[in-house]
């Protein structure tokens, strides 16, 4: 069997001319991606680290364009230069080259180096997004519903609807979850997205940098009206649709004004007392007995850590003394009576499902002991 490995291969002038032309085209392409205004293909940036994401896109688009120009360019050139001509007989064959170790080495090495470079760049920006954001930002929560979003703020009772205001240039820690199916919280101008998964709290961190009004878009299919969880989709008869919601970045003064407005507006919600049926006497609750019972009945679903340390239900450390969670999960103020109510009646809602006292097999006395124990956690 004849091997043609040693065949002398001459690439010819045409090849080098094409290579130079493709090189020039690639430079034009790279130059375009380095300098082009991004606003034709990406929304205007409204938060840090959106700029870095755009820089990464420029790098990937520039190198991708150069690669595509070379591959497509050579394909087109080879197709014209090496097409079989009418003068070639039916048995005419091409140059019998099997491989070329040097060439293959280089076209393996160059993509490898590119992958290393891309990994370094991506990890750096990933670090900006996932790790380096200040942790002590304003903590805001957003909850996905079929088919709208709601928001929660520290020291504001109940849920805020319609718009999520944020002060400009202050870091934000946004925790998201869902009350029903999976939604996804996306603000294109911030280049960030987090799935709202029931039973799970996902966090994104960013710093709004430009005052403005940015649509929120749901990007995970969530049922019939998924399409209208998007402020850019007009509702019927020119009215905004029920799922149209925005992130509004304000000056600090405007933010404070709006924030106080909601504190006042929702103040009455916080004052409503729990209406328990068959009130349990909490007098004489024994915290030590409650602690033993907690280990037995509760610890499978509740950690003794902060609220965010969730197993099935939230962590319960300081549950009745946590300023960032003035209400319990049922939306009523965190006091012993409300804790007893949840223990007695169970809970089904935004945060999941907790069985009631009958299902859990706990008596009224047990509830009193558990509440005494929970109140003792600080």
């Amino acid at each position, binding site marked *: 069997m004849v091997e043609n490995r040693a065949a002398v291969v001459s690439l010819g002038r045409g090849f080098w001319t094409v290579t130079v032309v493709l090189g020039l085209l690639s430079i034009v392409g790279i130059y375009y991606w380095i300098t082009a205004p991004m606003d034709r293909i990406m929304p205007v940036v409204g938060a840090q680290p959106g700029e870095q*994401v755009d820089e990464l*896109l420029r790098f990937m688009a520039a190198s991708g364009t150069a690669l595509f120009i070379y591959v497509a360019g050579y394909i087109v050139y080879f197709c014209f230069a090496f*097409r079989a001509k009418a003068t070639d007989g039916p048995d005419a064959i091409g140059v019998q080259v099997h491989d070329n170790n040097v060439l293959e080495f280089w076209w393996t090495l160059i993509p490898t180096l590119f992958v290393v470079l891309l*990994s370094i760049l991506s990890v750096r920006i990933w670090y900006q997004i996932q790790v380096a954001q200040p942790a002590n930002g304003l903590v805001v929560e957003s909850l996905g519903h079929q088919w709208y979003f709601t928001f929660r703020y520290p020291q504001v009772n109940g849920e805020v609807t319609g718009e999520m205001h944020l002060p400009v240039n202050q870091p934000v820690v946004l925790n998201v979850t869902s009350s029903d199916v999976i939604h996804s919280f996306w603000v294109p101008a911030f280049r960030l997205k*987090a799935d709202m998964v029931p039973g799970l709290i996902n966090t994104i961190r960013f710093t709004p940098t430009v005052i403005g009004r940015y649509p929120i878009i749901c990007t995970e299919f969530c049922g019939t009206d*998924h399409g209208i969880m998007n402020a850019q989709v007009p509702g019927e008869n020119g009215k905004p649709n029920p799922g149209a919601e925005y992130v509004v970045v304000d000056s600090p003064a405007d933010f404070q004004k709006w924030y106080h407005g909601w504190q006042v507006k929702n103040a009455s919600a916080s004052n409503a007392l729990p209406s328990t049926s068959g009130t349990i006497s909490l007098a004489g609750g024994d915290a030590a007995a409650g602690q033993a019972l907690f280990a037995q009945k509760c610890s499978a679903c509740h950690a003794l850590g902060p609220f965010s340390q969730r197993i099935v239900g939230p962590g319960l450390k300081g549950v009745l003394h946590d300023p960032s969670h003035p209400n319990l999960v049922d939306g009523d103020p965190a006091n012993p009576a409300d804790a007893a109510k949840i223990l007695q009646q169970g809970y089904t809602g935004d945060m999941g499902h907790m069985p009631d006292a009958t299902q859990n097999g706990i008596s009224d006395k047990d509830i009193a002991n558990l509440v005494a124990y929970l109140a003792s956690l600080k």
Partner: protein
Amino acid sequence: MSATAVHAGGIADHIHPEPQGFVRRYIFSIDHKIIGIQYLITGFVFLILAGMLAEVIRTQLLHANGGFVSPDVYNEVYSMHGSAMVWLVIIPLITGGFGNVIMPLQIGARDVAFPWLNMISFWIFPVAGLMLFSSFLIGAPVAGWTEYPPMSLQAGPGTSMWAAAIFLIGVSSTLTGINFVVTMFQMRAPGMTWTRMPLFCWAQLATAPLLMIATTALAAALAALFIERQFGVPFYDPTKGGSPVMWQHMFWFYSHPAVYIMVLPAFGMISEIIPTFARKPIFGYKLIAFSSMAIALAGFMVWAHHMFTSGLAPYLQLPFMIITFIIAIPTGVKIFSWTATLWGGKIHFTTSMLFAVGFVALFTLGGITGIFLAAVPFDLHVHGTYFVVAHFHYVLVGGSLMGVFAGTYFYFPKMSGRLMNETLGKWHFWLFFIGFNGTFLPQHWLGMLGMPRRVPEYDPQFQFWNDFSSISSYVMTFSILLFFINVLWSLRNGKKSGPNPWGGRTLDWQIPSPPHYYNFKNIPTVYGLPYDFGQPLPYKGLEEELTDSPVHVGAHY
């Protein structure tokens, strides 16, 4: 029969007479060629159905406020479009279809290792396909082909039917995978060492373990979904202690390798077509074969790149991102090798070759946007948008489906003994190429600018490019209509092809078209590499193959 004597498998000496009844011959056949053609016909029928669903989607999106169908119907339509295209069209066509028809011929075998199993694998497929489509009658699934719970737990009874149908398809795939692996390990003709095996077989060899291993994860996930929906055992429902994210892990543990199931065999066909029409050995045979295996292996380690927004621990994002980048290296090697194969060739631009070359260009673009998506910071922006839709259509339509068309034009003569019409074929190619790019190229910037996927209505500022996309999709659909007309017309009226119309050098081209019942009168012995044009054929024992049919070696198209 000396060649037969050294053949390791028992089947070579164990030849049954060809069954004569119509049913045993064409319906419940155990002949790999008939089964392969059954796969192709069934897959193409489902392509028509799923393609019609695609046009419902594009027609709905002609207007920013939708209005062609209701949101609920729209959700069913795109869910079924995706499910059918993946499980009833691309995977069966490219593994069960072309794999069955061609692979045993190329390795010089008389059939696959387990012909009866092969028949069972096939017959599960149309049954499951009908089950899947019948879910329209009872409220089809709505949560996309990915069917994320809890949404898929809430949807109508069709979702259970969906889960059962896909489970059955998975059984069929797994059996085919086992069959192919055993066939290639045990039944290669004497002298066909691994490094003399045609690249299409290498591609099938890389695909088969994916079918066997990954599909089991999907089967488990589907069984759990079915049990939870029907019997209330909570696997995924978070209000009862289940985990919806567990479904995502199990689903993508299958569905990312499934992407390679759908494209590796197309790579294999391209690796046959390009050298044949360039009249050149494939450039870098070993590296192409090796890269298929590398892609298949790495394909198992990247599934969570579909889940960067799902709440993965941030540090876990890094290995998935970087391994995904690494897959670009073997993929790039293949693309460069195909391009280099064109250099210095005597290229014949048949329709098949046009599709193969178009495949390389479009798959390159789909691969590049795949790297974009693997980068976590950019993915957090475009995840769940039309950018993703554009990317995977470049890979699965610009890649896999173009590969199916290239393979059909290429192997149609082997299956039918007739050539397809080249004029119609070229119209098909150019209209498809233009229509395809017009449909999916604009979706890249639609996604980046803010258009989410799976929506029946959208921001009016995106109307122009959606209309552009929809109208282009009509052109693409029309071109596929031409393809089907061509197939039907050519079956009766196509020019007689003879055994080897393209001048191919692999074993499949050295026997009559269509091949006899047991393929080879004598099992040939292989002495050399499969793509050495201009050399004597590296096979012995083929002397009797063409004695009873006219010999046309070399091109006559």
